[in-house]
């Protein structure tokens, strides 16, 4: 994450890509699929949230591992803020999914395996936040929450990527390989989808970067 804080070319890229995503995602032609119809445009706003969340969580685990090997509290700050932003993305992903499901499945929450997995994933990270709140000593807080973070991420992977695929789901992309084929991603969709993933993920790192700077400042002020 450090290399992203030091440069800012990617922030311009983010702004450009997200403008393009919003304009292109709402205006370009999309394939006419039964039931999905125009809601397929949600692909550019809902799916990248999960990409962003997983990438932010993965970076957070990376910093947790670094904390455990170096005992450097700065790593813990990185890990904490990355999780905060990852959870924000997760909540946005659930909300966009629920709005979409309301139009296609007829109700916002229908006990779908993917919805349940997403809810449990958020539950795990809410527990992480409460765990942090319940420990007072800084080093102990950092150590214990790093352990839980790594453990939780390892449980998250089967939860999000393996278990929903074993059962039937209404979710597009189920009953076969990962999401892309079933969407019938034609070149028009790809033209917006890939930039959207990059753009939203960079936006997440940007927000995380700002939050990390704030907590670094507070950390330095406190330790003086």
């Amino acid at each position, binding site marked *: 994450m450090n290399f992203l804080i030091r440069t800012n070319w990617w922030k311009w890229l983010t702004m450009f890509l997200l403008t393009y995503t919003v304009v292109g995602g709402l205006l370009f032609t999309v394939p006419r699929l039964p039931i999905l119809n125009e809601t397929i445009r949600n692909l550019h706003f809902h799916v990248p949230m999960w990409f962003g969340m997983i990438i932010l969580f993965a970076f957070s685990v990376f910093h947790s591992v670094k904390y455990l090997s170096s005992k450097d509290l700065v790593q813990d700050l990185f890990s904490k803020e990355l999780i905060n932003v990852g959870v924000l993305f997760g909540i946005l992903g659930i909300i966009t999914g629920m709005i979409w499901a309301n139009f296609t499945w007829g109700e916002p929450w229908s006990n779908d395996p993917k919805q349940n997995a997403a809810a449990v994933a958020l539950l795990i990270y809410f*527990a992480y936040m409460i765990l942090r709140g319940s420990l007072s000593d800084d080093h102990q807080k950092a150590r214990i929450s790093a352990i*839980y973070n790594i*453990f939780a991420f390892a*449980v998250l992977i*089967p939860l999000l990527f393996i278990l929903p695929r*074993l059962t039937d789901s209404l979710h597009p992309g189920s009953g076969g390989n990962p999401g892309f084929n079933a969407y019938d991603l034609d070149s028009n969709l790809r033209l917006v989808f890939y930039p959207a993933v990059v753009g939203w993920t960079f936006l997440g790192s940007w927000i995380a970067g700002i939050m990390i700077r704030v907590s670094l400042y507070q950390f330095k002020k406190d330790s003086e």
Partner: protein
Amino acid sequence: MNLVFALIKKDYLIDFRQKYPIVGIALYIFATIYISYLSFGNLINPSTWNALLWIVLLFASVTGIAKGFIQEENSSLYYYFLTSPSQILIAKFLYNGLYQLLIVGLTFVLFSIFLGNPVENLPLFMLNFSIGALGMGAAFTLISAISSKTGNQSTMMALLGFPVVIPVLIMAVSNSRNIIFGAGLTDIMGNLLTLISIIVIIIALSFILFPYSRRN
């Protein structure tokens, strides 16, 4: 390896000299099942039976294993200087595993007495039930080590443990339902292997992470 057995024996002696942990869990299971019996009466169908069984097992095992590291926090820390973290963890895994099997047996017997028993393929059901319980025990072992560090141990145990144990539960509960409705070993083999591999991941991670939880 002798040290591991010594540690298991220590846990066993603590539990059986004080008696109340073991009897407490047994009473806990009995009370929960009896309340279910009183509130459900004769209305219970196989799906509900299955769900109830797993819920009782979940709460019994979270209560049973929570004490594992918590009871040691004040009294018996000295032996951490004599043994390595992985020996302690192996001992805890084995002891919690035995404990889980005890809970499994007790829960199942009491359940059959009070709420009936719709299971036809008993060996397969018990195999899946035990594997699920052992998986829960494995996941709760590391969680209890983590939550013993916090101020509010038993609440944190449930709070941290329940979301983490859900992948294990999803697989085990759906297997168990399928078995009740007549699935054979070949039908649930895929799910069972996934379940076992999740448990292996949990155990492997516990060995990597546990040493860090002991350092101060």
